[in-house]
Every structure is written in C-alpha cells, then in structure tokens.
C-alpha cells in the first residue's frame, strides 16, 4: 500500500454460464475511505463483493485487497478484512460476551486481548447491562451495532459491510453511520454496499452498478453535478434508465 490504495480492481469479471454477473469492473479505494458500492438488487454488488472477500473465485480480471491477490492469497486477505453480512449474523443462543470471545478467537486473538476488547466495547457502547444477555433477546439495532463491532475486533484494514442497515429505524441508522465515521477516522477503510441512496451521501466516494457494470463513480457531490441531479437517488434513477451525463 505504498500508494495508499487498499483495494485495486481491474476488469474483474464473474460469469455464471452465459450470464455475466459482474462485467469487467475497475475501481480503486484509498485507505481510510468510505466507499459506497451502490446498485439495485441483482446488479451484481454481492457477487463482486464475494470475490473481494475471498469466498468466490473471479472468472477473469485482477484484484488486490489489502495488498493481497484475490486468486492466490485469499487466506491473507481473510486475516486482514472484517465482514458484516446483511443478516447481522451473530449467534442468538450465545451471550454478547460469548459471541465476542468466539469471533475474537477464530481470528486468533489472545485471551488477554479479547478481555481488553470486551472492556473497551462495554464502555464505548454502554453494554454494562447486556454483556451477559443472550443476543437473541436484543433489539435489531443492538445486534447490528454489535455485529459491526465484532467485525472490527481484529483491527482489520478493511471492513466490508453488506447492506448493513437493512430493516432498522432511521435513528439507529444515523447512530450506525456515526460508528462507521468513527472507524474511518481511525484509519479503517470501509466498503459499504447499500441501496439506500440517502446513506450513500455519507460516503467519500461511490460507485453505481447497473447490470454488472459500474456506470458511474466518484464523490457524491461530483456525480450529482455531472448528472444535474439534486440527490444521488436521481442520479441512480437516471443511470438505471440508461441516460448519459449532461456534458
């Protein structure tokens, strides 16, 4: 990461039979950036992300994540990234503390480190009362915040968030984005897929995917200017209808 790029993707392609799920996408993400990866359902966001986090092999193209190659160094990638899925997947039948201990453990954190992390999280998120409660009993908003904290446990360089705010109320979403900013301030890179266009406005840079291709990319402000739109939602609708920039 001499040049400060933590994700570098060039012509990355994923083909399922005759269907091009991801069609030669290219982009770069800098360290500490919040990168919004936008697109409608079925546009190929999740497929693209799965290639970057090392659980799906690309059909062609190149990609480096955290300085490692997605073809040959998936193990190293996995050690250096965090991942939060849209299901906020923690174990419902384990307590908050047990979940943290378990996930810290599979990332190879020592017992002492895990204890330290639990302490920090308890103060930061005010978990005193719920640390020994089963996760299943917590409201969705809490699960989501916990899930994000768990994905940050091993201090990853990049965190991939797959539609992290699906189904939660606006206030919790707002709080959640504060957590994202906080992480970015500390130098973590955040790769966020979402289809909430208002959320996309919080990102440093967004890319908009339509039918497997990246149709537009840049800081939200620039994109709005380029497409003559008041907000990203309009930009998105214009792209989806197949129109070109004004210039």
């Amino acid at each position: 990461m001499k040049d400060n790029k933590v994700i570098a993707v060039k012509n990355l392609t994923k083909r399922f039979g005759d269907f091009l799920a991801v069609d030669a996408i290219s982009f770069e993400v800098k360290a500490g950036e919040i990168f919004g990866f936008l697109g409608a359902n079925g546009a190929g966001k999740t497929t693209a992300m799965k290639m970057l986090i090392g659980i799906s092999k690309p059909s062609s193209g190149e990609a480096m994540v955290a300085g490692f190659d997605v073809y040959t160094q998936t193990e190293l990638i996995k050690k250096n990234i965090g991942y939060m899925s849209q299901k906020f997947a923690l174990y419902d039948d384990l307590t908050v503390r047990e979940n943290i201990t378990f996930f810290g453990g599979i990332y190879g954190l020592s017992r002492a480190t895990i204890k330290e992390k639990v302490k920090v999280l308890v103060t930061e998120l005010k978990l005193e009362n719920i640390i020994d409660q089963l996760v299943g009993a917590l409201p969705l908003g809490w699960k989501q915040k916990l899930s994000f904290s768990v994905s940050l446990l091993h201090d990853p360089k990049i965190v991939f968030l797959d539609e992290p705010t699906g189904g939660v109320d606006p206030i919790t979403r707002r709080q959640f984005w504060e957590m994202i900013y906080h992480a970015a301030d500390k130098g973590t890179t955040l790769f966020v897929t979402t289809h909430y266009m208002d959320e996309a406005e919080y990102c440093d840079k967004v890319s908009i995917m339509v039918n497997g291709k990246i149709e537009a990319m840049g800081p939200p402000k620039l994109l709005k200017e380029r497409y003559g739109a008041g907000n990203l939602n309009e930009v998105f609708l214009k792209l989806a209808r197949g129109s070109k920039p004004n210039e």
Partner: protein
Amino acid sequence: MKRFIGFVKKEFYHIYRDKRSLFILFGMPIAQILLFGFAITNEINKVEIAILDQAKDATTIEIINKMATSKYFSINRYLAAESEVEGVFKEGKVKAVINFEKDFGEKMVKRGQATIQLVADATDPNTANSITNYILSIVQQYNQSINLHQVGGPQVLTQTHMAFNPELKSVFMFVPGVMTIILMLVSAMMTSISIAKEKELGTMEILLVSPLKPFQVILGKVVPYILLSIINAIIIVLLSIFIFKMPVQGSLILLGAESVLFILTSLSLGILISTIAKTQQTAMMISLMGLMLPVILLSGFIFPIGSMPLPLQIISNIIPAKWFILIIKGIMLKGVGMAFIWKETIILIGMTLFFIGISTYKYKIRLE
C-alpha cells in the same frame, strides 16, 4: 488449536442451550432402548391361557403342570365346556385355549395316540404363531419324555439348539438395531441440522470469510457430535448389558472401534445432507425420510433381508446401517473378531470416503 477449542466450546453452548436437541441427544436413546427392550417384544412371557380338560386324568394333569410351571404361560382359568371357548376369547385376556379330548390318557395308552385341540387368538397373527409353537414344543417334550421310558419302535428325537440366543430374546435383535438408529440419528441428523442452521442464520458466511479454513469449520461442527455419539453408544451398551443382560461375546475394543467407524460414516452422510439442504427443516426432512426409514425398513433391523423381494435385497446393500448391524451382531452375540467382519468394515470405510468425497466436490462447486 486454540481457535478450534473455542469453536467446539461454542458448539456445546448451542447444544446445551437448545432443549430440543438435548432431548434428542440424550432422552431419545434411553427412551428408545427401554421401549424396544421392554414393550415391543416378540417373546412370549406369562401369556394367559385357558384349559378345557375333558379327561382329567394323570396324563392331562402332567401336561397341564408342565404348562403352568413354564415361564411362558400362566393359566387363567379352567373351562367346563366347549361352548365357553368363544366367550373367553371375546373377553380378550386369554390368548389360547388347550382342549384335551375325553379319555385322553386311556387313548394314549391303548391306541398310542390322543388329540389335543389348540385354539389361539389370531387377531394378532405373530403372537398366535409363537404361542402355538411354544405349546407344541412343550407337548413334544412330554412326548419324548414318555417315549424314553418305552422300549421298542424306532423314533426320531429332534434336538433344537437356538445358537447365540438360546432364549430367543428379542432384545438381542433390537439392541443392535436401536444402537444403529440412534448413532445414525445423532450423528447424521444433528450435524446436518446444525450446519444448515449456520447457513440459515448467515453465520456460515461469516465463518467462511474468517481465516478459518472450510474444513476447520466443518470439523469444528462435527467433533462435538462425535463425542456425544460415543457417549450415547456407551450408554446403550451399558443399558443392554446391565438391564437386558445382553452378552458381549466379542472384544469390547473392537465393538468400540467399529462404532466409531459407523459414527464417522453417519457424520459424513450428515455433512453431505448439509451441502444440499439450505434450511434446518430441509435437513431434518432429508434425514428422517432419507435415513431413518431405510434404516428401520431395509437394514434387517426388523424385517429379515433374506425374505425381502430381490430388488429390495439389492437396495439394502447401499444402506450403511445394514453392514453395521451385521458387525455388532457378530461382535456382541457371536463373539467374532476382525477375521469375520473385515468385509463389512471395508464397505463402511469405503462409504465414508465416498460421502466425504462428494461433499468436498459439491462444496468446491459452490465456491467456484
């Protein structure tokens, strides 16, 4: 290794906190073995019979005494006339009536033969069959005993010996079967459900994105069930030895080793099921329909394979349980060693490798 222990620990939390799986794991084996051992039985034990003795002479009384003192029958009542027979059966308690003809003893001596009429309640044909067989054998014994004292006339004396299970205890047949079912159930069904659960909840994805390798994830899910299955196998063997007095003629170590092999076969089947099933319910349905039914019907557990139609006999060969039942029957009842069960053992090993092979292949496809 430390990661692995953490993983196994987490798996035990899941099992421990889910009352349903706890029940399946420990309640079911004990309930099943007791049920099959005590309630569901083919044996005759203190069956109530009625006697219609129209002769009342020394011979009939001797035969009746033999019946009464055997542990198979207890005499419910003595009837006075043939007209009472039907009424007795309708009451339902008495399962058979033994009717001695008039002047039984006299005819025996003078003509050399006399007739006993045997009426059995055939609403339950199997029981009726066994009852008549037992009664006949008692009469036969009596016949032989009087023939021994007489001189003259050639005679055939049959001596039957029921090898390996002299008392024809049906629990001897059920224990191997129940053990097979339970190990299959715990290993295959519980693992496939618990892996499918991770998929359903989305935690599987998180685990795959973590630095754990897929085989570590699967191993972590499987190890707790190996331990629990072994505990179950031990409980079943102890129950059958101490409660049902079932002998273990062969080597306990061999029995243990073969059980572990069968546990591995079942686990690999469970893993295979979980590569197909996306939800816990599907996993459970496949396990129940695809594993339990064939195990009960086609493994030779209840219905003898030899008397099945040929196509079913052929199909029974692909059922792992069939081979395992042969193995444990061999070890527990016949006391045989590896020399007699190596073929079955190799088949089980082959099946295990085959299931693991397909699972890995299917898993790779998913990853592509």
